[in-house]
């Protein structure tokens, strides 16, 4: 099975071949490197840019004004903070001009912890991003969703930010991407650039097919009646694992929702699940003060106050200035499996 980062690469190949992508660019995005996480190796329209995040986003907007379909990369979301006013502008172009200009750009950027990234390769960005009205924000947690969300992001005529969970980029999917070869080693030979000299290397693209994951559609990845867990990105597979373990150990059954789209989010799926279970936990690793999960919590309280059996809750990253390199820092800064499992157990077993 393809890894998540291979899925992104395959989606970009599909995008530049069939969906009109004209430019895939950013620092180290073109040859020879093809992206620090290899997301852009071998792509026909990939090119290297100056180390200038504002320039990268500005270039994308300019290309879009002139009818192009750009996908730009900011190498780590930790370096996107100096672009936030440009992000606001990208998000407001259509609204501010009364529909005169669309802004069909895709910005992809690795987000979150999990690669021992220290202060500036571990930030989360979705809470900041969720405040950028006019954008759509997605964050896949597996390879197939990464492929399908990338295709939707590319095809959508609005600015879409694809947050790629760093910790999961090398994780292989459990479901095949349509058109992906059976043998993962064969896929590697086809599309991974060789280590060392790459001057003569060309990818051999498998015949990948169209596969869209709709924006705004969550995935119910585990089903249960005891409680609801909502997550996305790095913490999603941890929630799934915790759900499986608690089913084994305590007989507790959880609805686990992979939100996939931060905005627009699938309120219907959250709402339906809360109506069923009366118990909800929201898990993500962004810092906890003014966290996107708090917005979801507010809506749960607004809409389902009288449906809740126990207090709704969140499990989020600590409100600290960064994530320290020593793993004691990291594992105690952002939610890990044991805390998630304990929070889920407590949620499901608290007396109503």
């Amino acid at each position, binding site marked *: 099975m393809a890894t998540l980062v291979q899925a992104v690469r395959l989606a970009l190949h599909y995008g530049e071949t069939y969906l009109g992508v004209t430019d895939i660019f950013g620092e180290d995005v073109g040859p020879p490197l093809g992206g620090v996480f290899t997301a852009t190796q071998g792509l026909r329209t990939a090119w290297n840019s100056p180390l200038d995040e504002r320039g990268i986003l500005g270039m994308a907007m*300019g290309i879009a004004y002139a009818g192009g379909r750009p996908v730009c990369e900011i190498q780590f979301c930790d370096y996107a903070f100096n672009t936030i006013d440009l992000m606001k502008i990208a998000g407001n172009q259509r609204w501010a001009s*009364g529909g005169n200009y669309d802004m069909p750009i895709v910005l992809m950027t690795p987000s979150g912890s999990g690669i021992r990234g220290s202060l500036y390769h571990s930030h989360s960005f979705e809470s900041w991003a969720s405040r950028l009205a006019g954008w759509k924000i997605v964050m896949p947690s597996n390879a197939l969703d990464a492929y399908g969300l990338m295709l939707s992001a590319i095809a959508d005529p609005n600015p879409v930010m694809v947050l790629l969970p760093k910790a999961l980029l090398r994780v292989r999917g459990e479901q095949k991407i349509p058109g992906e070869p059976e043998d993962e080693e064969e896929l590697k030979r086809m599309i991974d650039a060789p280590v060392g000299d790459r001057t003569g290397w060309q990818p051999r693209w498998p015949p990948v097919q169209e596969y869209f994951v709709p*924006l705004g559609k969550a995935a119910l990845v585990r089903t249960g009646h005891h409680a609801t867990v909502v997550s996305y990105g790095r913490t999603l597979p941890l929630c799934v694992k915790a759900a499986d373990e608690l089913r084994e150990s305590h007989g507790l059954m959880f609805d686990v929702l992979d939100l996939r789209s931060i905005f627009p989010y699938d309120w219907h799926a959250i*709402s339906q699940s809360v109506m069923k279970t009366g118990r909800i936990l929201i898990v993500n690793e962004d810092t906890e003060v003014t966290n996107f999960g708090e917005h979801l919590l507010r809506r749960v309280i607004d809409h389902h106050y009288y449906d809740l059996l126990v207090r709704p809750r969140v499990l989020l990253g600590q409100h600290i200035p960064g994530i320290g390199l020593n793993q004691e820092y990291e594992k105690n800064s952002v939610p890990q499996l044991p805390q998630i499992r304990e929070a889920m157990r407590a949620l499901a077993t608290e007396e109503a």
Partner: protein
Amino acid sequence: MAREIVQPEENGLAVLSDITSGEYSLPAERCLEIYRLMVRARAMEERMIKMSKSGEGYFWIGGPGEEAFNVPLGLQVKKGRGPDYDYLHLHYRNSGTLIAMGMPVIDGIRQMAMTWTDRHSRGRNFVGHYCVPEWNVVPVCSVIGVAWVKAPGTAHVQKRYGGDGITIVVGGDAGTAEGDFGSCMIWSTRPGNELPVLMIVMNNGYGISTPAATQHAELHIVDRGKPFGIPGEVVDGNDPIASWHAIERAMRYVRQERRPYMIEALVSRLYGHSSSSGAMRVKDERDCVAEFGQKLIEAGVLDEEGASAIRKAALDECEKALEQALKEPKPTADDVRRFTYASSFHDVVYPDDYTGLPNGD
């Protein structure tokens, strides 16, 4: 009968003298065309200033004092839609450019009056924040400097497309302190990927209230282009004839060479930064409209009566435009969310436009 132009008959053909300024000249008809447009642009701005004081509009910001450069710019733009034509990343003092390109005065007034019929922003944005997709005028943004980083994007598409369309980006002198100005130079001169960008700095000597001389040590802003190999020149932006030729040279270079060029236009700021500083007439700066009118009178192509008629026609046009704009529909509460999103087949929550927070419960 007011005299607008002297047409000495010679063998039955009209022979019109050129108007000269220093080493440059322009045909008299062209000068009169420029003058009329300058007067109309000025009249529109002054009418808007009155609107800001009468309550018919709120905040005013604009370009009185930049007409002598902005009008010749607008007249020389290759006007149209798509990469074969020029893209304009303007700042909020470019009314003269839009008027010269053919924008009716009422289109500026409507924005000041915040009507739903405001074609630039549906009553959402400040005045002078133009957006005309059929002329490649991308949305003007209040944020200083951001146009510098967006301009290379349109130029990148134009370079790849071929043709002779260029990207024109305009900003003030204070905004060149933003890193985005450096970004524009870097992205426009990547070796092997040089871009057809005409960078224009309108140097009025101020950033709001702060004199440029107290913050900038560089002699000329165009000097900053030298390490990048960007040719540039400083022009008297109060002189429409000198400005016309500077723009013509710059455009010829950028169109043909497909590389950037920089113009620094020294201009006046005749009503201060904006209405926030009172929008009071400044007395000690040159007034390009008055100067050029006088020049045309002295050259004998216009007389006082003719100049007066041009001014009156412009004022009447503005009054009629305002009268009409004030009758037109305003945005309503139902319009708040409109135009947030373009329709998408791939969005299950907002397939058409934004409709408020996601729901479905």
